[in-house]
Each structure stands twice: as structure tokens, then as C-alpha cells.
């Protein structure tokens, strides 16, 4: 077994791990990254990026297949023809391009990369098993960035026609009938996309409504759109089993029914990847299923760090990246802490949902009296010209000093507004700061401005 030593050893090449590696390399730290797949992790290969590619393709084909909307803007077309295999190839090309890009960035930062499966020996040593043989790597700092994997349901074991999001994104044909178990953001995003691609989609959710992590005001437009698309949403129902081309359900009263399905996508959440690579040998303090970290991403063992999904909710790539960058800086001797006021979250549903900071309910619980302002896209010119004026921007601020605590939005393309929302909150903006910023006309961002004005009691366009 060959021996290798380094300053920083990173296990996992997803957004948390590869960003930590790039930054550590930039800072001149001798860094080794071990990844058994391709660089980019869940996000790049089976998550954010491929799903957005599929959603884009679905939106494109769906837009061309909406005769009424096209007719309204004076366009007449023959029904579009979808070559889904080509769509998937296009998606794979994007993924490959990005993954190669990550590899190049790692090279540029002089990070040594090892393709192989890591097994931890102790807090300073790991063995990387690869095709070219085993390597024993000793390090001063260990960064655990092993990510997460889809949560499994015992009643619906993955395999065959029962898919996780990973397999769903790898399908080369659009299934005729798709049943989706779980109406969280993954289930809603993919369910809606496949419906637009032509599948007959049924979404099953055990809780009383879709997107239960968002308030109902935000999830309602998504539920309405799903209904318009012919998606059969069954809330308050549990999936029992799949067999003979049907997914069997039980409703709240225990009444059973069956939904015909060629494929079943199980999207009931993700769980941290903490087993199978010797993590138990470190005997780290856990926080539930997650590795417990402090505000510096330090675990209970000195110089063992953890970033990304393995450390807890929210399991979001941008959180992992921020953590990875920070850990590299800390190892390089800089004093940092994960002290962000907000981590934006986006649902690429139709319409999209953005939530940054505190919801009205959480803000009230944390700060007592609050003010909110909601501006609907119905009154926004740009939204109308894009043929989609569903949704709104809502701003939440403290009543006493008007400091913005949260911004939520639902509507077409609102994911791009999330940066402005996050910046406002991170900079400690007050309602007056947002109201005092000129927002370009005509854009959907004007709704942010107007929401602040509304919260201050003097909206202009409503």
C-alpha cells in the first residue's frame, strides 16, 4: 500500500468537498480530495443541475404545447415532437461539462485528487481503495463531506420500476404513468416536469398539503398549477406497496385505493451518508442522524471537520459550499464562523418558490410584533408580459426597527430574485433600505420594492 501525507484530506467531492478543496488549494494548503464517483456530487450529477435541465426541457416543450397561450401572443405551431433521449443526452452533456470544469478547477488549485472509495482509519488517517490499488493517506485535518442519499421506504424498495430521484433523472424515456411518493420540493419539481413532458402523474403525500415545509400561501399557486397540468395530487394518503402496475394507497381513514403507474418515484427526503466508510471508528458526537458540528463546522474531534448534507438541514448545495469555503479558511488560520443570517431555499416548481430568512410565523415567534408586505405579480407589468402573473413577493420585518427578517416569493422565475432577498437580509437592511433602492422597471424585482413599500404602509402600484 502506498503512503501519502497531506495537510488537508477531504472525503467527498460534492459541493461542500470540492469547494473546500479549491479554497484550501488556493490558500496554499497541501490538499487531497477523495471521491469515488465524479466531481460535483449529488447536486451536479443527480440533483440540482440535471433536474433543472429536465425542468427546462419540460417547460420548453410544454410552452410549445399550450395552444391558448401561444395563440394569445400570435403564435401558431404544430404540436412539438419530443425526442427525450436527446433531451437526456443534452442534460448529460451539461453535467459532464460542469464536472470536468470542477476537475479543472481542482487541478488549477493544485489539489491532489484520488478516484476511489475512502475508508477512515482514525481522525488523521484514511485508506483510499481504487482500481490502481490502495493508498494510505495521513493528514493533519480531515474534512468529512460525504453528503446524503435518498431516504428509502421499506414498503417501496428501490430497484426495477421503483426509482429514487437519481434513477428518475436517468430515465431515457418519459414514463406513461408516473406515481410520485412525497410532495416535497423534489417530488413536486420532478412530478411537474414529467407531467409537462407528457406523463400522467399522480403525487401522493402523507401530510395534508403539498410542500409542507412552506406556508400555505406559498404552496397554493403550485398546487393550482399542478391541478391545471392534470397532476393528480393525493394528500393525506400513504403509499403501501407497488405491484402489478399499480401503486396501492391508504387514505387517512385507512381506505385503500390503487393508482396505475409504470414507474414510482420515491422522494420522501434524504438522509446523511454516515455509514460504510468507517465514520463510526471516529466515534464523533452525532446530532440525530447527522454529524454534530459547531458554528465553525468543527466536529467533536479536534481537526476533524464536516460540511454539507452530512451535518444536517437544510441539505442545500449552497450551504455546503459556504461551509466548505469556510472550513478551508479556518484550517488556513483565518477566523471565520458560519454566522449567516439566512440560507435561501428555492423550489424549482411551477411556479417557483423562494424563501429567505424567517417566515411570518417564525419571525413572530422570534421577535414578537412584525410587519409584512405582500405584492402580487398580478400588478407587475413584467410578469404580465411573460404571460405568467401568478404569485407574489412577501417581505417580513420587525415592527420596532423595520429590520427585514425574511422574504418569500412564489412566481415564474422568482429563483433569480433570491440573491437580492438574501443580500438585503445579510446586510441588515430595513424596509426603508429596500424601499429606498431603485429597482429596474420593468422587472419582477419591482415586486420586492413594492412589498417593502406596502409593509411601510404606502405602496405605489396597488
Amino acid at each position, binding site marked *: 500500500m502506498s503512503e501519502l501525507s497531506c495537510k488537508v484530506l477531504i472525503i467527498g467531492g460534492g459541493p461542500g468537498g470540492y469547494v473546500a478543496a479549491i479554497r484550501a488549494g488556493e490558500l496554499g494548503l497541501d490538499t487531497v480530495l477523495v471521491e469515488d464517483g465524479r466531481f460535483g456530487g449529488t447536486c451536479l450529477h443527480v440533483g440540482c443541475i440535471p433536474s433543472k435541465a429536465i425542468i427546462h426541457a419540460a417547460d420548453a416543450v410544454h410552452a410549445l404545447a399550450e395552444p391558448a397561450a401561444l395563440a394569445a401572443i400570435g403564435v401558431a405551431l404544430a404540436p412539438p415532437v419530443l425526442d427525450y433521449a436527446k433531451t437526456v443526452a443534452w442534460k448529460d452533456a451539461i453535467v459532464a461539462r460542469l464536472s470536468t470544469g470542477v476537475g479543472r478547477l481542482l487541478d488549477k488549485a493544485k489539489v491532489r485528487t484520488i478516484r476511489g472509495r475512502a475508508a477512515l482509519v482514525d481522525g488523521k488517517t484514511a485508506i483510499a481503495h481504487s482500481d490502481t490499488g490502495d493508498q494510505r493517506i495521513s493528514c493533519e485535518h480531515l474534512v468529512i463531506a460525504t453528503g446524503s442519499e435518498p431516504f428509502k421506504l421499506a414498503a417501496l424498495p428501490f430497484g426495477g420500476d421503483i426509482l429514487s430521484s437519481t434513477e428518475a433523472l436517468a430515465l431515457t424515456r418519459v414514463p406513461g404513468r408516473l406515481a410520485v411518493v412525497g410532495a416535497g420540493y423534489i417530488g413536486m419539481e420532478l412530478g411537474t416536469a414529467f407531467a409537462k413532458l407528457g406523463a400522467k402523474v399522480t403525487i401522493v403525500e402523507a401530510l395534508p398539503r403539498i410542500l409542507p415545509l412552506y406556508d400555505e400561501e406559498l404552496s397554493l399557486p403550485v398546487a393550482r398549477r399542478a391541478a391545471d397540468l392534470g397532476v393528480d395530487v393525493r394528500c393525506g394518503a400513504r403509499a403501501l406497496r407497488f405491484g402489478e402496475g399499480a401503486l396501492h394507497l391508504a387514505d387517512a381513514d385507512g381506505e385503500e385505493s390503487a393508482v396505475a403507474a409504470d414507474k414510482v418515484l420515491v422522494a420522501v427526503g434524504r438522509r446523511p451518508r454516515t455509514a460504510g466508510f468507517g465514520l463510526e471508528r471516529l466515534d464523533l458526537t452525532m446530532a440525530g442522524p447527522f454529524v454534530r458540528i459547531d458554528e465553525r463546522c468543527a466536529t467533536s474531534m479536534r481537526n476533524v471537520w464536516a460540511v454539507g448534507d452530512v451535518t444536517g438541514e437544510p441539505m442545500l448545495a449552497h450551504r455546503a459550499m459556504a461551509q466548505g469555503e469556510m472550513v478551508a479558511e479556518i484550517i488556513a488560520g*483565518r477566523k*471565520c464562523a458560519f454566522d449567516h443570517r439566512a440560507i435561501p431555499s428555492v423550489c424549482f416548481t411551477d411556479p417557483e418558490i423562494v424563501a429567505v430568512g424567517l417566515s411570518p410565523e417564525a419571525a413572530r415567534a422570534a421577535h414578537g410584533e412584525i410587519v409584512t408586505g405582500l405584492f402580487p405579480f398580478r400588478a407587475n407589468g413584467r410578469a404580465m408580459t411573460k404571460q405568467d402573473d401568478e404569485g407574489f413577493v412577501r417581505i417580513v420585518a420587525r415592527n420596532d*426597527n*423595520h429590520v427585514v427578517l425574511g422574504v418569500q416569493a412564489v412566481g415564474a422565475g422568482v429563483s433569480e430574485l433570491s440573491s437580492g432577498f438574501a443580500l438585503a437580509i*445579510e*446586510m*441588515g437592511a430595513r424596509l426603508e433600505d429596500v424601499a429606498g433602492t431603485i429597482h429596474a422597471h420593468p422587472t419582477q424585482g419591482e415586486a420586492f420594492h413594492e412589498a417593502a413599500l406596502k409593509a411601510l404602509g404606502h405602496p405605489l402600484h396597488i
Partner: protein
Amino acid sequence: MGLRTIKMPDIGEGVAEAEIVEWHVGVGDLVQEDQPVAAVMTDKATVEIPTPVAGQVVALGGAVGDVLPVGSELIRIDAPGLPDSSPAPPPKGVAKAAAGARDARPAEAVAAAASRPAADEEPAARSDRTAPSPPAAARAAPRGAPRPPGEKPLASPAVRLKAREAGVDLRFVPGTGPAGRVTHDDLDAFIAHPPDAPGKGGGRARNMAVETVKIVGMRRRIAQAMAESSRRVAHFSYVEEVDVTALEELRAALNARATAERPRLTVLPFLMLAIVKAVADFPEVNAHFDDDNDLLTTYGAVHLGIATQTPAGLMVPVVRHVETLGLNEASREMRRVSEAARHGTALREELTGSTITLTSLGALGGIVSTPIVNRPEVAIVGVNRIVVKPIWRDGAFTPRKTMNLSSSFDHRVIDGHGAASFIQRVRALVEAPASLFIED
């Protein structure tokens, strides 16, 4: 116009001066005849001074806390239709009085000027004094909105990072931005001029609050009396443990039959009786020592001072002639005078003339105290808390209720042997409580 000067009245009983503790009126106020204008305090009593004439207040003879001799000008009132009573023009007279007070106690006058904001009644003569420099706290945290405790400081990510790199906890940096946001300038200023001696408390904000109050009235009386006693009396303290098991049994039995007319008894009435009996054997502890004239006066009567915490501070109301009282009478009388002291209704004779003092902090009794002798008395007996202790008796440990008596004496006239003997007598009486009720 008829300017009338109201003088500090002779409150009686040889009182030569009185302290102004409260003004009910200010310059320019209209007053009615017999309306109280000020409260003044002598050694033992607070007296409201009414005005004998109606009119408008022209000048006040002093500020709260000033001590004025009897007969000096207290207040000047413009009473229309009445002849002038004061030949001197008002401002000069007031200035003279104020200047005189300052000359007598320059340090105190400066302190008074520093601690009081300029107010209407502040004599104009004081305005020429340079303002004292503000306390250090005011300089250290000059600006910025106050942040409620526990609230995260508001700052941009760049400011947060810079603070971390500089080792600055943003919670201590005053923010001048909107909603108290800490700006780059705020942080730079803080780094350039860090407040002195950062605490090692690990993240708890320092409390910079400073409050200066003038010690007036009762508190000043207490301060003076305590300092005088401490300065003059050669204190020594003597602590003895007393087994109160039998006393507590007796007390419990009596209290089991307590009624509205005969309320529950504390330990104190028993001690009162014990002191009466012990004093009979050691009369030198029940005495006054006139150290100016080297005279020790012992008394047959036991006028027992009861140290009492009142809203205004420590007072010592007196139960007179305890030697004439039975247990319940002693209890009642003690309760009555301490209530009177607490409510400020105690008469002058109820606040003077004690010959020996008993002090108890009740539930806060502690294990030992070192009471200060209530001059001119020569002895004070302090009561500590009752505890159950294992006591070696007859070859075994038995749980006994014990209590310490912490007493202090004036060693100039009482020697250790006499003091100890007196306390041992008290102890013997308390330990065998039946003996309290036996005529010798």
C-alpha cells in the same frame, strides 16, 4: 410687595439644625396658607413645614440634603399686601447661605454640584463651577442605539468577518447605522480605541451603568451614626452557641395555641426576657457611656432597642421598660414599635432612649455577625439563625437545635470577662427557658 421669609422653625427638644429632605414647592409656585412647603429632618423625626402666608415662592433656602440651622432662612415668599419681613434682597441672601454651606464643607458641595443636574432650584451662584468630567462609561460608549441583551448584532458579512479577524466581539461594538447596524466605521473606531480592560467573562456584555445618588435624610443619619460609633467605640465581638431545643419546643407549644389576640411568638421576646434577667446580674452592660465627659451611667430600667429594617433604612425603635413586661406583652410591644418604625409613625420617644440593643436579621441571620454598638450604649446582642446540629450528649450524637448569639461590646468600659459572663447568663436562661419565668 410683601416679601416674607420663613425660617427654619425650632422643632424642639434642643434640636439645633435640620436637614431638608424634600421640597414640595419650587420657585415661582403659588402657595396657600398652611400648605406644606418642605420636609425637614432632625435626628429622629421628619417634620413638614407649612407656610404661614399665601403667595408666590421667590427663593428656596437650600437644596435637598442641605442642613440648615434653626432660625436660618428656609423659604422666601412674596405675599401681596403684607409688609416686608426681610430687609435683604433675596438673591444675595440665598447666595450667602449657599456659599456658607460650601465653605463649611467644600468637598461635599462639589460632590453635590456634580451629582445634581442643573435644575430650577439650583442657586445661580453654583453655575460658575466647571462641570465635572463625565464618567468613563459615557466616553467609552458614546454613540449607537442600545441593543437589547441577547440580540445578535446587526452587521454586514464583511464587517462580521473583519471583526472576527480582529478578535472583536461585535456584541460590544456600538452600532451607529440604521437599527443599530454596526458599520465599517463603527468597527474601525472600536478597534482604534478599544474600551479599557476587556472582561474575561467570555461574551457577557459589560454593564457600563453608573448611578450616583446623594445620600440624604435617614441614610445620612445612619451613615453618620455608624461611622461615629465605629470611630469612637472600641468594639469587640463575642460569639456563643446556644442550644435552643427546649426553647423551640416551648415556642412550638405556645404557638400551637396562638390566637389573634396572642399571636405567634418569635425567639426575640424570649431573648428580651433573658436579657432583662441577665442585666440584673451584669448592670454595666445596660448603660450609656458619655465618652465626652467620661461618665458611665447604668440604668435599672431596660429600654431595649430593636434594630429594625425600614424602607428608609435601619432604625432602632425602643421597647421601654422591658423589665415590666411579660412574654406576650414584650412580643406585642416589640411588634408595635417596629411596625411603627417601618411605617414612619414612630414617636420621638419610641426612637430614643434605649439602654441596650437587640438585633436580628430573621431568616437571614447567618452564622455569625459583628454588630455595631448603638452609641452611647455599650452592648448589642445579635441573633443568628437556628440550625439543627449533631451534638455530643451522653455518649452519642443527638440532633439539637442551636443558635449563635453574636454580641458586641464597648471594650472601653466592658471587659471580655464581663461580656462573656453576661452572654453565658443569657445562654443559660435561654437553654432552660422555664427559668425565664421563675422569680428569683
